[in-house]
């Protein structure tokens, strides 16, 4: 099997799949060469991700990477997600074959976009972290 057991597990049983009501941040990324599309929703409290969900159109690895990413970013500061590296997502899914590397790219780009959106919303709200004091 050319996919890691971790990837297969995330594909078989994707975590945190589906829309989120009233998210604190939403980001989307499309990989134009491939038409894979990943969308990430964030719930943020005190500047940290307390819940993440995803919706993804794409190949098995992209779906698995989305699922793995939502687990990876739990509890992480939104600010830190602005620079989330593709390699972190690839590692979270147990590695990717070279011809599926785009899966990590499109998912991490969606997370970064969601983080940017969350940061923008926080600034709009007067700099107060969503749900915080």
């Amino acid at each position: 099997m050319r996919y890691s057991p971790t990837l297969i597990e995330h594909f078989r049983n994707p975590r945190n799949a589906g829309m989120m009501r009233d998210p604190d941040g939403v980001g989307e990324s499309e990989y134009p060469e491939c038409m894979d599309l990943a969308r990430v929703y964030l719930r943020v409290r005190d500047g940290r991700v307390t819940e993440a969900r995803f919706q993804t159109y794409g190949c098995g690895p992209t779906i698995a990477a989305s699922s793995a990413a939502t687990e990876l970013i739990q509890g992480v500061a939104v600010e830190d997600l602005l620079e989330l590296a593709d390699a972190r997502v690839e590692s979270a899914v147990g590695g990717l074959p070279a011809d599926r590397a785009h899966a990590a790219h499109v998912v991490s780009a969606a997370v970064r976009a969601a983080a940017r959106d969350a940061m923008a919303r926080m600034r709009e709200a007067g700099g107060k972290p969503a749900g915080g004091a």
Partner: protein
Amino acid sequence: MNRRVYLDHNASTAVHPEVLEAMLPYFSDQFGNPSSIHGFGREARDGVEAARERVAHFLRVGKDEIVFTSGGTESDNAAVKGIAAARGRGHIVTSAVEHHAVLRSVQALEKGGFEATYVPVDGHGMVDPDDVRRALRPDTIVVSIMHANSEVGTIQPVGAIGRLTREREIPFHVDAVQTFGKLPLDLDALGIDLLSFSSHKIYGPKGIAGLYIRKGTKMASVQHGGEHERRRRAGTENVPGIIGLGKAVEVRARDMAAEETRVRALRDRLWAGLERRVPEIRLNGHPTERLPGTCNVCFRHIESESIVLGLDLKDVAVSAGSACTSGSIEPSHVLVAMGVPLDWAMGAVRCSLGRTTTVEDIDYVLDCVEPLAGKLRELSPLKA
């Protein structure tokens, strides 16, 4: 424990037990080079010629009109390039949905100064003979149209095209890799001058195929070397492979009619079940003029590799209708030529049934596909 279900017979097939049995002696007992003049060579030569006779008899053509090759790809290359090499220049007519072995051969010839017209297909993937007629020119040197498309199964009107080419004395090549041994082929009635056929689609071994070349067709060899195959294709014959192909043909001649009826019924059961149980899908290919075992389906809003992977995890083997390699998607050139919108074409999956497919297999596949499609649609941001 999952059932193991193989629904990728258009890609390849398991060698029939009778074929394997026929081949085995030619690996270690009758192993000689058929070109050798001693007894070992003669044994091998006798086996090769008996197999050739069997294939020729099956196609109702002359023994000397059959050339063995290493595969359908080589046969396609030899046919198109062989005619081009004999003529030196000219115009080629083919279709937009040919196998890449024909398309890329023609494209290579265009780079070398030949001209080509790629006739379009309709929404079912079918060529219109009138489009072929309009494409023909005084300098057309060959027409190459496949008998049935490997992806969607649509059967082309080769008889009508053959009449056009025969009238104009233009050689007509048909890639019959997906129909040889599945559909009746009367080459004379169809006006076919060159026919590519393959072993491993009909329960023979991989690595052996053939090209029928009608006597009198002017061709140049594209593989030079020894005197093999009457100087049409150099190279020591793949003796066990040829024996296997001969036996596969014998078995198909016996089993073909009943088998294709059985497979067609199973295919129709599969499509009926999918249509009933899975929303937003469409069948690709002609509804009736289609290979008996081929069922190519588009699933809207979900991507084909994810379906293939999901089914693979249930030990069901099907084929993706598009290829995602190196991060760049290549939607099937056949579906694109048929005008299938991209958001459907990206969700294409091909099921191709065969000799070992059972009713239980079909029902198991339906039980796997329904929840898988539902789950993937739930994940998709594109669903309505």
